[in-house]
C-alpha cells in the first residue's frame, strides 16, 4: 500500500487549475430530472470520490463527462478548454477512460477481445501492417496478466465469452480495461460493487497506482470504507446536484453519510 504521506501531496487542489470541470450540468428525461445543475472539479493527480444516494445522479454526472450522454445544459472544461463530447469516443480520444456501472462489455466476445476493444494490437511485421492481422496470442497473454493482476485467479478459460463470466469476473474485465488504457483521466463507476474482498482491494491498489502514474481518478462508490481509504476529496451528490465537497480528514464516514442522505445540511465545500 502507498505510504500515507504521498496522499498529502495529492489532496490539495490549491492554486492549480482543475483538469476536468463541469459547470451547471442539467439533464432531464421527460419529467425526470437526472441532473439539476451539477458541478464538479477534478484536480491533477487526485482521487476524487463521488458518493450519493441511489438515484442521486452520480452515474448521469460521469456519463456527461465521458460523452455517454449529452447534457441539456451546462459546460464541461478539460484543462481549461471548453469541450463538447458528442459520443464516448470523443472523450476517449481526449484521454478520458471510463468504467460504466453497466460495464459496457460485448457479451459474446471473449476477455481479451473485450480488454482490447477499440485498441486492438496488430501482429508485428507485414502481417500486421499490410494484412492488419491481429496479434491474438499477445492479447490473450496480456489479458491473462491483467486479470491475474486484479486477483481474479478463478478464471479457468481466458477464451470464455464475457457473458458466461461470473458477475465479479465481468466487472474485473471492465476495470482492467480502464486502468490499462487511461491517459488523462480515469473514471470508475462502482468498480468494486460485484468484487470479492481480495479483488476489491486489488482494485483500490490499482486506483492508487493509476493516481501515482499522475492520472487523476474519479471513483463512484457506495462502499464508504473504500472511499475513505483512497479518496483525496469526496464530492457528495444529492438530488441531482453537488451538495458539497469534503475530505476523509475533515469529516468522518458517519458525517459523510448523514450529509449524503440529507440528515444534516451540507457544510460548505472544503478547499
Amino acid at each position, binding site marked *: *500500500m*502507498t505510504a*500515507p504521506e504521498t*496522499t498529502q501531496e495529492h489532496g490539495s487542489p490549491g492554486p492549480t487549475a482543475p483538469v476536468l470541470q463541469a459547470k451547471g450540468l442539467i439533464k432531464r428525461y421527460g419529467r425526470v430530472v437526472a441532473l439539476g445543475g451539477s458541478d464538479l472539479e477534478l484536480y491533477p493527480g487526485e482521487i476524487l470520490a463521488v458518493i450519493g444516494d441511489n438515484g442521486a445522479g452520480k452515474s448521469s454526472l460521469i456519463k456527461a463527462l465521458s460523452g*455517454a450522454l449529452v447534457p441539456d445544459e451546462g459546460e464541461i472544461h478539460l484543462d481549461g478548454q471548453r469541450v463538447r463530447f458528442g*459520443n*464516448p*469516443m470523443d472523450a*476517449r480520444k481526449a484521454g478520458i477512460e*471510463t468504467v*460504466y456501472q*453497466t*460495464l*459496457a*462489455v*460485448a*457479451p*459474446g*466476445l471473449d476477455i481479451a*477481445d*473485450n480488454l482490447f*476493444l*477499440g*485498441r*486492438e494490437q*496488430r501482429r508485428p511485421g507485414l502481417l500486421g501492417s499490410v*494484412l*492488419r*492481422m*491481429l496479434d*491474438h496470442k499477445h492479447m490473450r497473454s496480456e489479458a491473462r496478466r491483467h486479470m491475474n493482476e486484479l*486477483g481474479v*485467479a*478463478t478464471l*479457468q*478459460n481466458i477464451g470464455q465469452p464475457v457473458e458466461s463470466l461470473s458477475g465479479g469476473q465481468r466487472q474485473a474485465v471492465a476495470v482492467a*480495461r480502464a486502468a490499462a488504457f487511461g491517459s488523462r483521466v480515469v473514471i470508475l463507476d462502482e468498480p468494486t460493487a460485484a468484487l470479492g*474482498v*481480495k479483488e*476489491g*482491494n*486489488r482494485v*483500490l*491498489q490499482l486506483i492508487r497506482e493509476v493516481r501515482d502514474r499522475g492520472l487523476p481518478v474519479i471513483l463512484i462508490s457506495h*462502499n464508504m*470504507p*473504500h472511499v*475513505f*481509504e483512497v479518496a483525496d476529496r469526496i464530492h457528495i451528490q444529492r438530488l441531482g446536484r453537488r451538495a458539497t465537497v469534503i475530505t476523509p480528514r475533515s469529516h468522518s*464516514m458517519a458525517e459523510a453519510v448523514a450529509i449524503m442522505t440529507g440528515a444534516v445540511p451540507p457544510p460548505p465545500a472544503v478547499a
Partner: protein
Amino acid sequence: MTTPSSTASAPAPVPAKSDAAARPDFDDNRTTSARARVQQLLHANPTLGPLAVLVLAVIAFTVSNPRFFSAPNLSLVLAQVTVIAVLALGQTLIILTAGIDLSVGAIAVFSSILMASLAVKAGLPGPAALVAGLVLGTAMGALNGFLVTRIKLPPFIVTLGTLTIFFSLNSVVSNSETIRGADMPGLLTWTGTAIPIGGFRLTYGSIIMLLLFALVLFALRNTAWGRHVYATGDDGEAARLAGIRTSRVLLSVYTVAGALYAVGAWILIGRLASASPNVGTDYNLDSITAVVLGGASLFGGRGGVLGTLIGALIVGVFRNGLQLAGVEVVWQGFAIGLLVLVAVSLDQWIRKVKA
C-alpha cells in the same frame, strides 16, 4: 491508511501461492472423457451443426439417386448456389450487426442491369462498365448504411424502402428489357466460364465466391474491424460506450455488403449469360435463410461466414436433390419446408449436447 474499519472489509492481499496450490482442481488440461471432448469440439466450432446437416442431406440424396453424387451434378449445385452464397455473405455481415437487408436482391439485380446497360447501351468498354457497376452497387449499399447510421432508421425499414426504390429505378433504366450476354463484352460474362477439373466444372464465378468468403472470414477473425462488427451487433450501446464508433462500423458493413452484392451481380450475369431486370425477387429470403441455416442469430453478434456458406449449400442441395429424387413440384415446397425444419432441429439438438 490501514484503519481498523477498513481491515474488516479489506484484509491484506493473500499470498498468490495459495491460489496456485488450489489450481490442479481446475486444470485446463485434465484428462477428459470422449463425450466431453466432443462437447468441446462443438463448442469451439458452431459450424459443425450445419455441416452435419449438410453431410446427412448429401448422403440421403445420394442414396435416393446415385446420380446426385456425380461430379457433374455437384458442380451444378455449386454453380447454382454461387450467386446466393455471395449475396448471403453480405447479408451475414449485416445480420452480424443485428441488421437485416431486404434490398440485397434489388441491389444485385440493379447492379447487373447497370453493368450491362453501360456496356451495351452506353457503349462503355467492358472493364469500365464493370467498375462502374461495382461502384454503383457499393454506393447503393452505402446509401443503406447512411440511412441506418445518420437518420437512425431501423435497417428493416431502410432496406424495405430502398428495395422498392432500387427495383423501380431498375425497371426505368432497363425499360424492363433483358440484355443478352452475347451482346455484352466478354468480361461481363466471363464469370460464367467453367474450368473442367476431372468431371467437375468449376466456374470463375464460384472461384471468386470462394475467395470472397476467405477474405471476409479473414477480416472477421483477424482484424480489428471484425471484432468491432461483432461487438456492435452483440450490444450496440455497450460497444459505443466502450469507444467503438458503431456508426462508422455500420456504415462500413453496409458499404462492404453493397460491394459484395455488386460482385454477385457480375457473377449473376455470367451465370444467366444475360442481364435480366426481373430476377432476384427471392434473393432476400434465400440469402437470409442461408445465413440463419448457417447458425447466425438475427439478433446480431453470433454467427460466421463459414456457416453461411454451408447454409447456402444446404438450400442448393435440397432443391437439386429433391428434383433428382423425382419429388413432384407441388410437394417439393412441402419437402423443402419440412427439411428446413428438420435441419435446424438437428442443429439445435447437436448444440444442446454442448450446453
